[in-house]
């Protein structure tokens, strides 16, 4: 009977997910992730970006419509970054792990939600990783928590806690690869060709970078890498090759493109694909001690028969609520990147559904935009000095991103209204995709202040 089969299936999956496996991969992940987050927080602070991105601007581009801006002020923002740094240390050391990972997730995500301007796929990824890590028992061994609270100590964790992180990483790569299956990327080697043209001065390799063939090789290799890497990493046999590819790929992107700590994050987090044995040896090398915690030699073996008993072994009860939450999370993770199919727009042009979809380094879009206000009473027009409202970084980001353009127009309209002038707001703008000649972008006859929300981006001139 189908119902029986369905229950069997659920039971089967649940059994697999709750199989107890060694903690080592998760412990490595915790340390590496915490360390990278600490580094990245300090780096962000050191570059003065807290001030530049979150304190200096007078307006922010909220994700929740322009009427609901997250509260911010300098002491609060700096506190959040301090919390971020401290909780990253907590994650790394496994100290008050649950609280640390919750605080890290909340502070990091809050900062990211303040302003669309700073959206980066890798920040989104960090939020997701922190969210998933929060539910895992990554502190049950090789952590200060397990020293301080010996009763929680356990050398085993349920399979899902490792699988969830692996699956999230796989989703990132796979969707990033699928996104590269487009005409420009594959058959024009764009924007790769544009990017590489500017690397002619690169030591030794510069002369190769500017060759057309190189752009094609990089485009195709990048696509194949993204699509296949998760499978390579899941496969026991191909894993070493896969990880070598991860290191090579991300080092290359780090050398060529200004993408911050992202390459190091990926090189670090993909370690979680290695077997428990591998991680155990890693810990033994670093720790210079042997961990005699297993009665059975092989670890990470997913069969249920591989029962591990240790003195500290404590059965983790199956938490169906948590498993359901993860099921919902991953269903969304599979659907959200596909949401742009709901609209017929040219995704790269209108960017309807572009964010949160793992479109990483996919296009070169540049634009130019000037807002023009029309005094409704006098019908006279005036060019707006956008710099009076937005930072240089915000201006640069908004000129190619329609939802930000709309928000900016509303900010401007509101400002005039506060000064007692009712205005319509228009934009004279152009944009270019992948180095093609600029085209008109926003329809210059549409009063942007009259558009409150932007489900339908018909106010963007069609890209034909």
């Amino acid at each position, binding site marked *: 009977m189908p119902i029986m089969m369905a229950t069997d299936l659920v039971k089967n999956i649940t059994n697999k997910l709750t199989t107890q496996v060694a903690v080592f991969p998760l412990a490595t992940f915790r340390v590496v992730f915490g360390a990278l987050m600490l580094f990245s927080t300090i780096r962000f602070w050191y570059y003065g970006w807290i001030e530049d991105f979150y304190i200096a601007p007078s307006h922010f581009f909220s994700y929740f419509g322009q009427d609901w801006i997250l509260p911010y002020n300098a002491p609060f923002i700096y506190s959040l970054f301090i919390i971020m740094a401290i909780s990253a240390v907590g994650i790394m050391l496994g100290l008050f792990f649950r609280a640390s990972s919750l605080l890290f997730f909340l502070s990091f995500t809050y900062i990211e939600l303040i302003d669309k301007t700073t959206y980066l796929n890798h920040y989104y990824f960090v939020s997701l990783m922190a969210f998933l890590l929060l539910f895992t028992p990554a502190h049950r061994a090789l952590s200060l928590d397990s020293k301080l609270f010996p009763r929680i100590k356990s050398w085993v964790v349920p399979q899902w806690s490792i699988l969830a992180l692996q699956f999230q990483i796989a989703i990132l790569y796979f969707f990033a690869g699928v996104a590269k299956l487009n005409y420009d990327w594959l058959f024009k080697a764009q924007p790769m060709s544009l990017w590489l*043209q500017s690397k002619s001065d690169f030591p030794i390799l510069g002369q190769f970078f500017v060759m057309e063939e190189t752009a094609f090789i990089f485009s195709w290799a990048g696509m194949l890498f993204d699509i296949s890497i998760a499978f390579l990493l899941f496969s026991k046999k191909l894993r070493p090759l896969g990880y070598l590819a991860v290191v090579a790929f991300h080092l290359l992107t780090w050398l060529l493109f200004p993408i911050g*700590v992202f390459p190091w994050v990926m090189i670090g987090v993909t370690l979680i694909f290695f077997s428990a044995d591998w991680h155990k040896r890693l810990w033994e090398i670093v720790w210079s001690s042997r961990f005699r915690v297993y009665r059975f030699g092989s670890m990470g073996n997913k069969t249920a028969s591989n029962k591990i008993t240790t003195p500290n072994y404590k059965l983790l009860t199956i938490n169906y609520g948590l498993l359901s939450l993860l099921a919902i999370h991953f269903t969304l993770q599979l659907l959200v990147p596909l949401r742009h199919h709901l609209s017929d727009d040219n995704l790269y042009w209108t960017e309807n559904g572009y964010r949160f979809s793992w479109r990483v380094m996919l296009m070169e879009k540049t634009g130019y935009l000037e807002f023009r206000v029309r005094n409704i009473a006098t019908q006279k027009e*005036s*060019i707006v000095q956008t710099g009076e409202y937005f930072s240089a970084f915000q201006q*640069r980001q908004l000129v190619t991103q329609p939802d930000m353009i709309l928000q900016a127009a509303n900010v401007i309209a509101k400002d005039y209204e506060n000064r007692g002038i009712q205005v319509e707001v228009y934009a004279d703008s152009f944009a270019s995709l992948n180095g093609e*000649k600029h085209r008109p972008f926003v329809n210059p006859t549409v009063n942007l202040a009259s558009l409150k929300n932007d489900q339908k981006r018909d106010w963007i001139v069609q890209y034909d």
Partner: protein
Amino acid sequence: MTKHITILLLITALFWSCNGDEENPECQASDPDVMLMDIRDFTILPAYQNAYNKIVEARDISQDFILTPSQDQLGPFRNAIKNAWLAWQEASGFEFGPASDVALRSNVNTFPVDSFGVLLRIENQDITLIANDLKGFPALDLLINGIGSTDEEILAIYTGDSAADYTAYLTAVLIDIEDRILSVKATWEDSYGETFPTNTGFSTGSSFSMYINAYIQDWEQIKRERIALPLGLLTFQTPLPNQVECIYGGYSQELALAHAVSHYNIYKSADHLGIQELVEGVTNFTGNNGETLDETMVAQFELGIANLSVVPDPLSETVLLDFDIVNEAYLALQDMVVLMKIDMTSGLGISINFADNDGD
């Protein structure tokens, strides 16, 4: 395992050693870039040299004028200042590195001048020149063209009771401009000029990226400050004639035109390597009638210059009398901004910004 980690660390160390470390001289590309050397030697240095020569000349002539303030001396002095101001237009586009460190452009050419402030300070014999709108070329314009409605009135001031206060201020302004241009020129001839061609590439912070960013920003100033603002495009079509660059001498259009022409010349760089050579290599761009990016830009430069040429001086009157003729010039300059900011930068792979930030 250990072996693998060692290899990994070695590779990392190898790559790490120089990435993103532009401060470290060992990490800069050892070969200075030929194009950057050309830009330095045939575009930037001559422009500063010329601007410096002309302001020195103006100061020399100012001494004759101060000694014997007469109609005979006033003409050549005014000419010398106009020539220096025109020469400055060719040097104002390099506001990065040494020039940006000392905010050269704002120091020598902030307009409109605060004429009330200047006169007040002359009265108080205060020549400290603490604000940018109290000095620079626009202040010179006030002092030789604007302190009286006729030449007789102006000369009367320079021969009157407070003549010494006026000439002291005049000299202070001249020396200020001269010193500032000299110091930037000297840095270019010395340390900065040496490192400029070695900071190769197109990424943020590279010499070429700074050069192009400054170039575009300066072009935008022609259209915004020099044209759009006085024409009233930023003030609901209420013209602001007092906002022109040269309000008293009445040759704002001439200055703006010189500025635009100098940008065109910088683009072409005559017989030397410059922006045009790179733009000629851009292939992804196809104009409406199949033109290349270079052809499109050349045509747009010429249109902008042509439209600006027919705007009559004094600009402060034209903005009140003939909106359309000034607006035509504005629109052509504006279209050029679009080509520069979008097509040129994306074609060359330069990001339009000075500040660094991550992408993904």
